[in-house]
Every structure is written in structure tokens, then in C-alpha cells.
């Protein structure tokens, strides 16, 4: 067995987390650097995975398989297809920026207490999340995936509840109560989803007898394992519910605004840009592969929900008074697009959805992190507290605008490619749905531009008059993201080349063909 690259990619941040947590209280900066270095090393490993991955090769590559819990029919099986590779790369890429952006977010308020070591905890938890996210992208064993899909909640929970924005308009007391409310809400929502999934997982075992994704999918394909229609549907629902909570899909979304609003910005980025992707990813990998029939059966409802998410999320984003909540609702709208693309069941839709996961990760990270820098300067998340920043801090405003334009998927920036693919893919099969979804792009323009106008333009508010422009550290965070946004917007080919084969596979799993263009159909 060759060097277990995938295991290493996940294990490195895990070990890094332990090491970081072990750093003594006084050596705060050391912990930060350690975490940063580990995350960068992980990035390198991810890059190696990306390189070693051969789009033309087998569906799952770099596979590893070890015995684990034979009694539960569980094996330690890893393997990546194009979609997973892309998302692993995204994760590994974003974490260093998250860490950099959160450099000072976890400095302890009272330095006297030597027992309490928030900084170490903060960065250790971030690395732990990274490890778990990566391995859940790699897992090709349903149980293994489930384990980390669930376990991921705990570090996230502490990240949300334990660390919040420094200055809060209502004072630290309310802040902490709201934080813990948000954290609990996050955990319970996802835990309930996970537990319902657990029932389905057990059901799957009873039906299939093991958890190997490849084996089950194969057995489903060649008919050696046929589920009763209702069984399949129930199992599908069990899985989908958990993923829909994580994604999040309307009406299971309300935890996201609270979580993103109360958490520190880097953590908010972690949630929406990385962790939530596991949900949509899992729909693509597990729902469609394991329960193709049920997926098709549920498609109409899911499409409607996705549509609602798109419009509803956008409208609510327009109505927000809080920058971070606004971005959160925008994300809900975007997740609607992703799910739409997945269940449109066309190559364009699914490729689009996959690209969308990556692009949305980058664009939201850019927008949210800049927003975070803004908030950290003024100490308020209320849009109304800003105005005329553009005049005071042009670079900040500029980057903010670019992030916003990416969010409204301006052509030339990465999100446009994915969003358009999703729309085209959806339209090809469900024209009405496609057209309704298109309204989303107008609403997106609305909430982004309103946000920009209210915060950045107009007469300079006295409170922001002394606001400093972006610092070097912050530029280091934002610039690469923006460059990436533009690059992937102009030349997404490298990404699509990796993704396309995997999508073709998925399409064959669900036995769906792309609708023929009318003209060719006529011929």
C-alpha cells in the first residue's frame, strides 16, 4: 500500500490541532504561527492530492481501505473523485486565510487567568474542523462519513459559542447570551438532522449489510441490491434531511443567520464557506448515488424548496440591518442555487453546482472577511453605523466592492460561471424553474448594491472618519482570494476538467441524460 496521502491530509491538521492546544498559555503567538504553518502544510498536501489526481483515471483515486469496525460492517475507506478533490483544495486553501483573518480575534480579554487559554483553543478548534471536513470529503464509507459529519459539530459549536465579536452594540452580557443561543441553535439543528440521518444509516445497514459507498452503489446499479421503493424513499429522506439542515435549505435555514451573525467573522466564513459545503457535497455523493430513484422522486419538491431559498434568502438579505446576517441570507440564497443545480440532474447543472461550491466559498470568504475587517474597525455590525467609508479607506471599499460583485456573480468573476451553468442546466430541464431562479440575480444585485451604498458611499460619518485602510495582514488575506476569483472567472478550465468526469459518473448513477437541444433533436 502506497503512502496514505489522503489520511495524511486529514491527519496533519488533526495533529496540528492537538499540538496547538498544547501550547502553554503564555506563548500565544507561537500557537498562532504553529496553526498557520500547519494549515499551510495541509495546503501543500492538498495541492499534491490535486496534482496526483488524474481526471481521466478511475472514479475514486488515491483510495485507502483498512478494516475498522467489522462488527458494524464499517471499513476505513477513503477515496476522492473530482468533486471531492476540488472541495478539499478549497478547504485547505481557505483555512490559512481564516487563521490569518482571525489572528487577533481570540486574544484573551483578561490576561491574569493562566488556566484559560482561548487563543490556543481557537486555532486548535479551527484546525480540528479542517481535519474533519477534509476527511468527510474523502470518506467513501457512509459510516465513516457520518462519524465526522456529526463530530464536526462539536468544534464548530465551541467556535461559535466561545468566541464572538469583540465590541457588540448591546454590551458583552447580551452578546454572550446571544452567542450561546446561536451556538446551541446551530448544534441542535444539526444534531437533530444528524440523528435522523443516523436512523437512516442504520436502516441502510439493515438493507445493504455494509457501508461501502462503492459496493452499495455498484450493487444498486447491477440490481443485486434492490430496495423496496418506500424503503429507499425513507432512507433518502433521512439522509437528505441532515444535508438540507447543513446546507441549509429553506425552511431549515434559521440557524445560519444566528450562527454567522454571532460568530467571529473568520468562524462565520468557516461555517458558510467550508462546513456547509459538506451538506451539498453529500447530497451529490450520497443521496444521488445511493438512492437514485428516490432522488428523482423527490426532485420536484426539492426544486421548489431550492427556489424558495433563492428568492426568500435574497429578499431577506435585502431586509437585514446587520452586515453579517445579510451575508448569511445571501448564502442561503446561493445554497438554493447549488441545490437547484444538483437536482436539475443535468451535466451543466451539476458541474455548475460543484463549481458553485468552490466559487461561493471563495467569494463569500472575500466579502465576509473584508466585512469583518470593517466591523473590527468600527465595532458594530449594523449597516446604519457606517457611511462614506469609501472616502476614508478606498482599498477596503474597493475589495469590499469586488467581493460584493462576486456575490452578485458579475461576469468575469468566478461565481458567474457557476451560477450561469446552474441556470442553464436547470432551464434545460425545467424552464419555468430556471426563469424564476433568474430573478435571483436581480435581487442579488439589489442587496449587494444597497449594502455597498449604505456603508461605503455618501457623506463620511464622524465615527468612521478616522478609520484606517486595510493593513498588510489583511491585504495578504484578501488579495489572493480576489486574484483567484478573477482567475477562475476568466479561466475555469482547470477546475471544470477535474469536475466534469465525476459529474458524468453521477449522471450515469441516476441514469439521466441531458435533454437534447431542440434543433439536434429534430435531426
Amino acid at each position, binding site marked *: 500500500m502506497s503512502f496514505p496521502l489522503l489520511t495524511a491530509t486529514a491527519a496533519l491538521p488533526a495533529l496540528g490541532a492537538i499540538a496547538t492546544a498544547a501550547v502553554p498559555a503564555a506563548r500565544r503567538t507561537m500557537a498562532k504561527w504553529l496553526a498557520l504553518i500547519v494549515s499551510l502544510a495541509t495546503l501543500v498536501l492538498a495541492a499534491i492530492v490535486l496534482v496526483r489526481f488524474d481526471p481521466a483515471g478511475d472514479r475514486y483515486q488515491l483510495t485507502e481501505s483498512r478494516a*475498522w469496525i467489522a462488527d458494524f460492517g464499517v471499513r476505513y475507506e477513503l477515496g476522492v473523485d473530482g468533486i471531492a478533490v476540488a472541495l478539499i483544495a478549497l478547504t485547505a486553501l481557505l483555512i490559512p486565510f481564516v487563521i490569518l483573518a482571525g489572528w487577533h480575534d481570540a486574544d484573551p480579554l483578561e490576561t491574569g487567568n493562566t488556566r484559560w487559554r482561548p487563543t490556543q483553543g481557537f486555532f486548535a478548534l479551527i484546525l480540528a474542523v479542517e481535519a474533519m471536513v477534509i476527511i468527510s470529503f474523502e470518506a467513501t464509507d457512509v459510516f465513516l462519513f457520518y462519524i465526522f459529519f456529526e463530530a464536526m459539530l462539536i468544534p464548530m459549536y465551541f467556535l461559535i459559542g466561545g468566541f464572538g465579536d469583540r465590541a457588540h452594540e448591546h454590551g458583552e452580557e447580551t452578546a454572550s447570551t446571544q452567542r450561546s443561543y446561536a451556538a446551541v441553535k446551530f448544534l441542535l439543528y444539526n*444534531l437533530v438532522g444528524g440523528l435522523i440521518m443516523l436512523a437512516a444509516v442504520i436502516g441502510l445497514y439493515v438493507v445493504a449489510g455494509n457501508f461501502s459507498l462503492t459496493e452499495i452503489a455498484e450493487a444498486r446499479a447491477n440490481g443485486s441490491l434492490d430496495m423496496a421503493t418506500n424503503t429507499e424513499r425513507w432512507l433518502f429522506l433521512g439522509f437528505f434531511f441532515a444535508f438540507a439542515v447543513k446546507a441549509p435549505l429553506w425552511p431549515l435555514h434559521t440557524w445560519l443567520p444566528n450562527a454567522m451573525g454571532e460568530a467571529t467573522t473568520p468562524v462565520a466564513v468557516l461555517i458558510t464557506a467550508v462546513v456547509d459545503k459538506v451538506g451539498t457535497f453529500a447530497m451529490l455523493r450520497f443521496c444521488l448515488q445511493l438512492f437514485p430513484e428516490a432522488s428523482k422522486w423527490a426532485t420536484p419538491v426539492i426544486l421548489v424548496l431550492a427556489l424558495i431559498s433563492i428568492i426568500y434568502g435574497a429578499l431577506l438579505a435585502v431586509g437585514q440591518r446587520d452586515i453579517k446576517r445579510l451575508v448569511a441570507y445571501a448564502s442561503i440564497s446561493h445554497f438554493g442555487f447549488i441545490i437547484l443545480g444538483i437536482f436539475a440532474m443535468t451535466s451543466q447543472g451539476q458541474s455548475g453546482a460543484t463549481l458553485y461550491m468552490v466559487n461561493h466559498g471563495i467569494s463569500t470568504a472575500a466579502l465576509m472577511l473584508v466585512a469583518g475587517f470593517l466591523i473590527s474597525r468600527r465595532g458594530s455590525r449594523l449597516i446604519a453605523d457606517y457611511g462614506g467609508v469609501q472616502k476614508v479607506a478606498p482599498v477596503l471599499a474597493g475589495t469590499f466592492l469586488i467581493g460584493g460583485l462576486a456575490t452578485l456573480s458579475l461576469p468575469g468573476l468566478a461565481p458567474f460561471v457557476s451560477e450561469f451553468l446552474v441556470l442553464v442546466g436547470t432551464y434545460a430541464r425545467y424552464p419555468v424553474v430556471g426563469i424564476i431562479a433568474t430573478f435571483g440575480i436581480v435581487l442579488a444585485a439589489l442587496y449587494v448594491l444597497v449594502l455597498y451604498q449604505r456603508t461605503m458611499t455618501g457623506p463620511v460619518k464622524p465615527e468612521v472618519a478616522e478609520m484606517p485602510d486595510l493593513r498588510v495582514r489583511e491585504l495578504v488575506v484578501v488579495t489572493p482570494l480576489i486574484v483567484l476569483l478573477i482567475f477562475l472567472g476568466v479561466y475555469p478550465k482547470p477546475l471544470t476538467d477535474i469536475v466534469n468526469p465525476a459529474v458524468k459518473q453521477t449522471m450515469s448513477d441516476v441514469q439521466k441524460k441531458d435533454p437534447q437541444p431542440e434543433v439536434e433533436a429534430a435531426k
Partner: protein
Amino acid sequence: MSASAVHSLWTTAADPISKIDAPKIEYGQLSPTLIVIGAAIVGILVEAFVPRKSRYYVQMFVSVVALTAAFAAVVGLATSGYGTTKAGIAAMGAIAVDGPALFLQGTILLAGLVGLFTFAERRLDPEAHGNRVDSFAAQAASVPGSDSEQAAVKAGFTTTEVFPLLLFAIGGMLIFPSANDLLTLFVALEVFSLPLYLLCALARRKRLMSQEAAVKYFLLGAFASAFTLFGIALLYGYAGSVSYGTIAQVVDGTVKDVNPALADTMGNDVLLLIGAAMIVMGLLFKVGAVPFHMWTPDVYQGAPTPVTGFMAAATKVAAFGALLRLLYVVLPGLRWDWRPVMMGIAVVTMLGGAVVAITQTDIKRLLAYSSIAHAGFILAGVIAMTPDGVSSVLFYLGAYSFVTIGAFAVVTLVRDAGGEATHLSKWAGLGRRSPLVAAVFAVFLLAFAGIPLTSGFAGKFAVFKAAAEGGAGTLVVVGVISSAIAAFFYIRVIVLMFFSEPRPDGPTVAVPSPLTMTAIGVGVAVTVVLGVAPQYFLDLANQAGVFVR
């Protein structure tokens, strides 16, 4: 009733004594129990003859040696195949020596050993008059707050009787799951119950609550065992024998020689059903299943925390062991009658425990209710009626007991002026004051909540899996729902510890001696190991999954 039968009764009674041949006892196979009981008796003698100053150490020594030896014996028996191939009935049909018995005895002994450490902890309470004291009353006989109590405290008395009591309890628990006839079952039940009643009354602080707990536990326990006994009587009346094997045969109708009297009673299933129900009730009482659970919160809260921990862990193990044997060996022929009923009980137990726990404000009561909910989960596995069911239950018990002892051990550390600070509000901000302790407790809570990568998840999964395979899918769904509800209050505690500001009058965390540290350490270790790599223990449980008839 035929006259001949009566006559035969007389004649056999009139036979010369010499006819009775001495019973044949397999001392080797019974050694674990014998060692522990023996040690307990030694402990009594120690109390009688060893000077007070050195009793503590001697008792410690005796108990530790005994438990270790007993555990070694269990391992020895298991390795020499008594768990699998050589499994059989010992002591003239009174005791079964087979896989489940040995597995559970092993678990009980280890739990007992860990529990013993928490019993022996003497660093937590502030020194009274220069004597290190443990969490037991200086002199149980003295009235709380009286001069005699003061004197006892001043003299530095400590109730070292707890050690022999603990050993007796463990001895009874060792017999309980391996009892192979109803009489042994009943005797074992009493043997481990009575010491526990006493132990509950021996708290050093909050003695009134402690005594109240003891009274409640005792009266209700006695009440329950009366029912059990009557059930035994009825079953005996039905089958004409109290040995499991015979009863099972009678139930299945495969019994060899049917004398007219037996034929008479055999027809009468009412005896059987009522009897079975009453015995099962007694066992359900011990495991704390709704609606026989109501003693649990009060007793758990009032009893000295080390006792609570030990009780919560070991009693459950023993009682579920006995329940398994009863249902799988004696009453399999009856499963269509009891299975639906047990399902109902499992459902109400899972939900009831979880729901009521939501609004608890005392950490010990909270854990009590959580233990009720867990009893429900385990019942789900019991109901599976498959070998997987047995092994999953065994695994769950093993995993659960150590988490429990560990959790209660942590509870003993958090103290303020009035002893242990068990009110939840006092735990606010514990994570800030002493992150390590809080983190450890969080781990236990997560295990209780069944979060993946903890033993709790592995156990829950095993049990639910067995239940689902056994065709009890509804139980899985209910179980999942109640886990969701349960998660809520485990999370509440974590929130309290980590996300809320510490109170100025908050409790301090005492630095324990290696004893308690070991207890907690073992708890954490087991939690993590069984969570990450449970395979070995699952195999163990699988091998141990077969009862001997």
C-alpha cells in the same frame, strides 16, 4: 392432589439422612464470587480487630487485592474457554458460568475497582481536625449535628465499613447475572441490595438527604423485591421448579416427566404470565425503567456521590445481566407476550427520562434522569432477541458504566463550603476556571449524548442496529428522537460550563488524589478507545453473546 403424591412426600422426608449426598461445588468456576465474598468477610473481621488508625489502609489493601484477584480469575476462566466452549452450569444448577456471566462479572469487577478508588478518596474534603476524611459519615450512628457527631469528627473517625459493604454488594452483583435459578436470583438480589441501602445512608455532608435517600431506596426496594418473590412463587407454582432450565422446558412444553400435579398447573398460563411479569418488574425496578424509576433521582441525589456512581454503573450492569438471562433463557417461549410490553416500557423510559431531564437543576438528578433514558436505550437492545442484541447490550453496559463512574467522580471534585456544589447554576463558567476538568466532563456528557467518536455513540449504534435488525424499527426512531431531546440538556450543561460568566461565589475545583484521577482517567480512556476503535471489545462481546441452558 393425589394421596400417593402426599405419601411419597412423607416417605422421601422420612428417608435416612445418609441418603443425601453432599452437593458438588465447582470452586474454580465460582472463584471470582467466592474471592470477593471471602474478602468481604475478612473486611468485617478487620473492622473488628484492626486498630482504627490502620483500618483504612488494610481495608483498601484487602479490597483492591480481592477485586484484582477476582478479575484475574474471571480472565482466567474466560481464557480457558468457560465463556464459550466449556460454558456450563455450576453449583448444582444454581450458577451458570458462560459468556455473558463472565463478561458482566468482569465489567462489574472493574467498575467496582474504579468505584473503590472513588470510595477511598480522602483529599477532597477539607481536613477536619488534622485528619484526612472521605465522603462518608464519621459515625453513621450519631445523629446529624449532635455532639456525638462532633466528637466522632474530632476523633477523626471514618466509616471504613464501606469497604466490606462495597465488597458484599459486588459479590451479590457477581451472582445476580449468573444466577441460574430463581432462588439464587432472589438471594443475590438481596445480597447486593442491602449493602447499597446502607451505603446510601452514609454521606458525610447533607446527612438528612442521605438518610432520606436510604429510606426511600430501602422501602421501595423491599417493596419491589416482595413482588419479585411473589412472582418467583407463582413461577414455581407453574413449573414446579425454580431452575431456569426446567422452567424454560415447561414453558416450551418440552419437559420430560410430567407428573399429574405439574400437568395441572402447567395448563394455567395465568400463573406463568403474572409470575413472569412480577419478576421482570423487580428487575426493571433495579435498572430504573419507567414507571419503576421514581426512586432513581432521589436516591442518586441523596447518596454519597461515590456510591451513586458505583450504583448507577454496577447495578445497571448486574440487573440487565439478570434480565437478559431471564428473558433469553427462561422466557424465550413467551416472547410474543412480553416483547410488545417491553417495547412499550422501552419507549416510555427513553422519552420519559429525556423529557424530564430537560428541566433539572441539580447535576446529580440530571445524571439520574439521563441514566433512566439510557436504561431505555439498553432495553431496546434487550428486546432485539438476537445474539447481536445480547452482545450489543453487553457492549453498551461496558461502555456506559465507566462513563458514569467517571462523570460522578468529576462531580465530587466541584465543591464549595457546603461540600459538593451540585446545583447547576454553580457550574457556570467552570470552563473558564478549570478548563481541564470542564473539558473532561464535557467529554463524558458528549458520550452520554452519543456524539460520534465517543463510546456512547458506538454503544448506541450497536443497540439501535440490533433493534433494527430484530425488527424493532420503531424503537430506533423513538430512540433517535429521545436522543435529540436528551442532547438538549447535555448541551445546556456544556453551555453553562463554557459560555457563561463564572459566578463570584462559584465553587472551587478540588485537586484529587491519584485515586480519583485514576477513576476519571479510566473513564476518559474507555470513552475514547471504545469510541474510536471499538472492534476488539465488540468481538469480546460477540464471543460472550451466548447463554448456556
